[in-house]
Structures are given as structure tokens and as C-alpha cells.
């Protein structure tokens, strides 16, 4: 038995070493890393929503439906930088598109008595119970990324994100400016309401002929590419293609070449390859929702609310997009993308 316990201890120590190695980075990003200190500052929180005597030493939890992909890693970077700049402690809890896990992680953050809660809301029903509990515990909430329609009903101070239709409108106007006459809007996920809204926005902003094309999607780029190519071959009058995802934009680029079409190409969202394509001139522009801000601003807003009783947005969402990346700023953005902030 003694030998066994010895081995168990070794296993635990090894695990502890691993943990220490893994956490080194995030601990350095936060000014206070001791859980006890954070708990101590928030003892009176249940009594009143705003305690203006609190300075830094606040703890803010960001519980998102993040999948750790390239998009969300930029959000995380923004939140970490804001935590550093504001001198608050950040708890970053991704939930991999699992609404049950997200609700459980929000519950856990409430037990940790955090001072502010930033959540993305892809599914309001699933987390509204947990958010009501946070509200009852006097924890202020800011929604981010998705949730522009729900943030008020959920009792959040404000929402930080891009509304799809406004972004689409701006993109449509930009295509018109570039002299396009007939636009093909490529939808890569069936029944994703956000994508429908983007194309609807493009149509309104463009004010001309916009056709939606439903394609197979990112899981089968080869077929998607053939679908776009066939469409362009069948109707030579398309002089612009709008995609809603950088991978689909790559497929469309090849499709345009394959169909010997001279259509201009523009897209939503960024990728490293895409920035190169913009610099090379094969892609006109990318609509950028600047998700770095979606991580950064909620932390700042919650700190301001807790320390200065400020609210932002005047009851409307705070828009992080659309920003545009085209030839004029592609070089700058490329450098920033390498640092993981764009």
C-alpha cells in the first residue's frame, strides 16, 4: 500500500508539473492570479450590483460557445489583452458548441462569484436560466458575437458584435462602388439564418441583381467549387461573386478561373491565405467583423460598469463590424494576423 501511495503521489506531482507548464502563459497575462484574492474582493457583491469601491482585482468570466478555431483564438487574444490592460482577472471558458456545457460553465462561474460575465448567445433558451441566476446574484452581463436580438431580454448591459444585415449592406454597397452589375451570393450552410441575413443585406446594399446560390459547403470544397464553376459557366453575365467564408472564397477563386469568368470576388471573414489573395488582387475585399474587439470590449465594459457605473450602447448593440480589408490595408492586417489579433 505504501508503494502504491508513493506512486499515486508521483502521478499527481507529474500532473501538477504539467499544469504549471500549461498555465505559465495565462498567469503572466493576469495581474492577480490567486483565486483567494479574487474571492476576497467580491464578498459584498450579492448585496449590491455596483460596488464603486472595487478597483482592479475584479474577476471576469467569458463563457462562449467557442470551438478553439482560428476565429475564436482571436477573440480570446482580445479578452486576454483587455484583462492585462485593465488589471482584471479573466476566466476564459469555451464550450465547443455544446449549449449544456455552456450553461454548466456559467453556473460554475456564478459559484466562483465572478464580478462580471461575458457570454455569447447562439442559443438563448439554453442559457437563459443560468443568466437569470447570474442576474439574481448581482453579476452584470455583456453578450458578445451572437445574441444581438436577445441581449435585452436576457438583461445584459449591452451586446458587442456585428449584425449580419448591416455588414451585408455595407458589403453590397462596396461591390456597387467597384462597378459590379450582377452578383452571385454563395450560401455554404443550409438554413443558417445568419448567412441568409448576410446575402439579404448584400442585396439591399447593392440595390441590383443579386442571386443566392446554395452550395455543399466547407465539408466538401471540391463539390462546392464545381457548383460555383457550373453556375458561372451557365450564366456568363455574373461579374461579381460574394462568399461568406474564407475557405469558400478560395474555392470560388479557382471556380472563377476555371469558368474563364472575369467576375470580381469578395468575401466575409479573414484567413491568412485570403489576405495574400487580397494583396495579389484576386480577391477584392474581405468583410471583417474584428472579433478581437468582441473579446476586448466586454472586459472593458464590465470593468467600467463595476468601477464607474458606466453603460455603453444606449440600449443598442455595439457594432464591431463591418471593417474592410482590401489592397490598401492588407499588408498591415497581414502583419497583425500573424500576431493573432486580426
Amino acid at each position, binding site marked *: 500500500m505504501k508503494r*502504491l501511495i508513493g506512486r*499515486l503521489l508521483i502521478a499527481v506531482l507529474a500532473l501538477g508539473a504539467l499544469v504549471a507548464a*500549461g*498555465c505559465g502563459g495565462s498567469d503572466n497575462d493576469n495581474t492577480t492570479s490567486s*483565486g483567494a484574492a479574487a474571492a476576497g474582493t467580491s464578498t459584498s457583491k450579492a448585496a449590491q450590483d455596483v460596488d464603486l469601491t472595487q478597483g482592479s482585482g475584479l474577476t471576469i468570466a467569458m463563457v462562449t460557445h467557442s470551438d478553439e478555431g482560428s476565429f475564436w483564438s482571436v477573440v480570446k487574444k482580445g479578452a486576454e489583452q483587455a484583462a492585462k490592460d485593465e488589471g482584471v*482577472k479573466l476566466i476564459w*471558458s469555451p464550450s465547443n458548441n455544446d449549449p449544456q456545457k455552456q450553461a454548466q460553465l456559467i453556473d460554475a462561474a456564478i459559484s466562483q462569484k465572478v464580478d462580471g460575465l461575458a457570454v455569447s448567445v447562439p442559443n438563448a433558451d439554453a442559457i437563459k436560466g443560468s443568466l437569470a441566476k447570474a442576474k439574481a446574484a448581482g453579476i452584470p452581463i455583456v453578450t458578445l458575437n451572437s445574441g444581438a436580438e436577445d441581449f435585452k431580454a436576457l438583461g445584459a448591459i449591452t451586446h458587442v458584435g456585428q449584425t449580419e444585415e448591416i455588414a451585408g449592406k455595407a458589403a453590397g454597397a462596396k461591390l456597387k462602388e467597384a462597378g459590379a452589375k450582377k452578383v452571385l451570393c454563395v450560401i455554404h450552410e443550409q*438554413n443558417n439564418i445568419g448567412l441568409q441575413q448576410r446575402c439579404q443585406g448584400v442585396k439591399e446594399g447593392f440595390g441590383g441583381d443579386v442571386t443566392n446560390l446554395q452550395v455543399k459547403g466547407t465539408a466538401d470544397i471540391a463539390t462546392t467549387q464545381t457548383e460555383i464553376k457550373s453556375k458561372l459557366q451557365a450564366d456568363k453575365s455574373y461579374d461579381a461573386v460574394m462568399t461568406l467564408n474564407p475557405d469558400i472564397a478560395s474555392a470560388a477563386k479557382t471556380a472563377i478561373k476555371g469558368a474563364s469568368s472575369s467576375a470580381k470576388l469578395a468575401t466575409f471573414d479573414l484567413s491568412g491565405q485570403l489576405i495574400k489573395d487580397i494583396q495579389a488582387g484576386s480577391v477584392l475585399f474581405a468583410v471583417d467583423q474584428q472579433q478581437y474587439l468582441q473579446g476586448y470590449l466586454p472586459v472593458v465594459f464590465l470593468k467600467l460598469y463595476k468601477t464607474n457605473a458606466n453603460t455603453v450602447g444606449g440600449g443598442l448593440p455595439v457594432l464591431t463590424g463591418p471593417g474592410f480589408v482590401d489592397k490598401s490595408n492588407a499588408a498591415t492586417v497581414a502583419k497583425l494576423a500573424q500576431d493573432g489579433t486580426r
Partner: protein
Amino acid sequence: MGAAPGGAAPAPVPIADERLTKISTTARILRRPELGALLAALVVGIFFTTQNSLFAKLDGIANWTDVGSTIGIPAVVVALLMIGGEFDLSSGVITGSAGLMMGILAVEVGMNIWLAIVLTLIAAAGVGFVNGYMVIKTKLPSFIVTLATFFILEGVNLGVTKAITNQVSVDGIDTAPGYSSANKIFGGSFWHPHDYRVTVLWWIAITAIATWVLTRTRVGNWIYGVGGDANAARNVGVPVARVKIGLFMTTSVVCALTGIMIALRLASMQAGQGVGDEFTFIISAVVGGCVLTGGFGSAIGASLGALIVGMAFIGIQFSNWNTDWRFLFLGVILLVAVLVNNYIRKRAEGIRG
């Protein structure tokens, strides 16, 4: 025996049969399949308490028992099935199917939620029956049969949900008649303000029932028998087909019940819910002492395995470790738990005799 005719029985001679030899209490305890899991759970629990004292407080415990419960309820029946020598890869996705079916019946069809729950459980029993029947009739490995069921259900979940709701989820389950009473029993919480989930009580109850069945009933013996050696079991008169089909049906029904609990709690269900969870259930059973070849394991062990997963999941959040490494931590913790368990069992077997 029968060597003692007449009244004067000789004093009991040392029995040659090794199955009847006396086993020391230590060895008997060490040989329990769940002992390793218990020790591993303690190690993981103490470890996370040292990271953040909240972990061992009532509020913190409410969090990780909640996560443990929705893993543990299905893990217990998955363990029974594994002891019976079979797998069910559709056990994760059926939680999603059940939630969606109940949601669609209640929201789109307008049924009372209780009726929707009953119909959903009946449908789940049907799925389990098909799984079991196919495995018995075709003699294909249950891996293959239930993998097919997994894909079929995943397709049905997305296809049917989209066709009916025009979305990838069913929302507004809390508006259906009968919701509040059903939610109180399946999805609610108790012990305000710590808010322990009612699923934790279900978890304890289902673990207790499964343990009783396994250790105190004839069916329990049959389950160990068909998992250990189906032919030998058949030869001594165990209804192998009925036991296995029954196990598949129980697994489906209890997994569906878990899905119903999740759907009621969230008041909505996404088409992708539960996909991949089957591996969490299986790993919980394995951490708890089940072996992949069947015939060995326990229900309490599987529950402890689920508890470890729940503790690791919430413990990582409480400790505020960099979540980029979350799955690495989870994997290491599970591996340590399995190794501890294996080590103890090997030692116990060495002590035997």
C-alpha cells in the same frame, strides 16, 4: 462430497476447491472493481481542492456533481451493457434524438410534455430492441451495428429537425403544457441557494438500482455470465439473447431519459447534441473498472468514473488553467485514473489465494 454416510460427520476437512478458499478482507476489498476508481476520485478531488478551495465547498460540489450526473446516468447502463459483453456507440446520439423527439412532439405537435416523454421512451426502447436484435441475429460485432444506428440517428436528428422546424434546433420547450411539473422532476434543482440538480438524485438512484440488480438478483448473474462467456452461459440455461436485447433496450431508454432531462433543463435541443458523448460514457465505465472484453465491472465504478470526468471538467475551470490545454488535462486525468485502477486490480489478483 457425500463422503459421510450416517450421522457422525467428520470435522470439515480443508477444501481443495480454490473457489471456496477463505479470502482475507483486504484482498476482498482490493478486488472490488470500483476501488481503484474510488481512490482515483479521491486523488482528483483532493488535487483540485488544493487548486481552489471553492471546489470542496457546497456551491462548487453542486457544479461538478451536475456535470457528473448527466454523464453518470447513461454511464451506469453503458457499464451494464459492457459487463454483458457489448457496446453501444449510439448511446450518445440517442440523448440528442430523445430531446429532439420530445421537443418536436411538445412544441410542434402541441402534445402535453408528459405524453411526449412517454412516447419518446417507447421509441427509445424500440431503438434498443433493434440494436440488440440485429446484434443477436446477424452475430455482427455490436460496434458495427450500433455505429450504423449512430449514423442513422444523427442523420434523422438533423434531417427531421430541419424539415419540421426549419432550423437546427427545437426551441421553446418551456412553453409546452405540463412543462413545469416535468421539469421539476427531471430538470430542476433543489437545496437553494446551492442549487443541486435533481439529476444528481436520479444518478444516485439509478446507480443503486443497477448495483442491486448486478449483485443481488439472478439477472445480475446472467449479465456477468453472458459477458464472461456467452456459450458457457447458454449451456447452463441463461437466456443469452433475452439478456443482451434487454441490456440494449435499458441502455437506450436510460440514455433517452438523460436526453429528456437535458432538453427540459435547457428548454431547447440542438440537432448535434450528444454526438461524441458515447465515448465519455464508455471511458467513465472503463475508469470505473469495466473491461472492454466484458464480464467484469460494476455500476458504482462507472458512476465514480463519471464523477471523475465531472470533477476534472469543473476543476479545470475553477483552477483557471489555460483552457487551450483542457483536453490534454482531461486526457491525463483519465489516463491516471485508469492506470491507478489497473494497478490496484493487478495487485489484488496477485494477493488472491
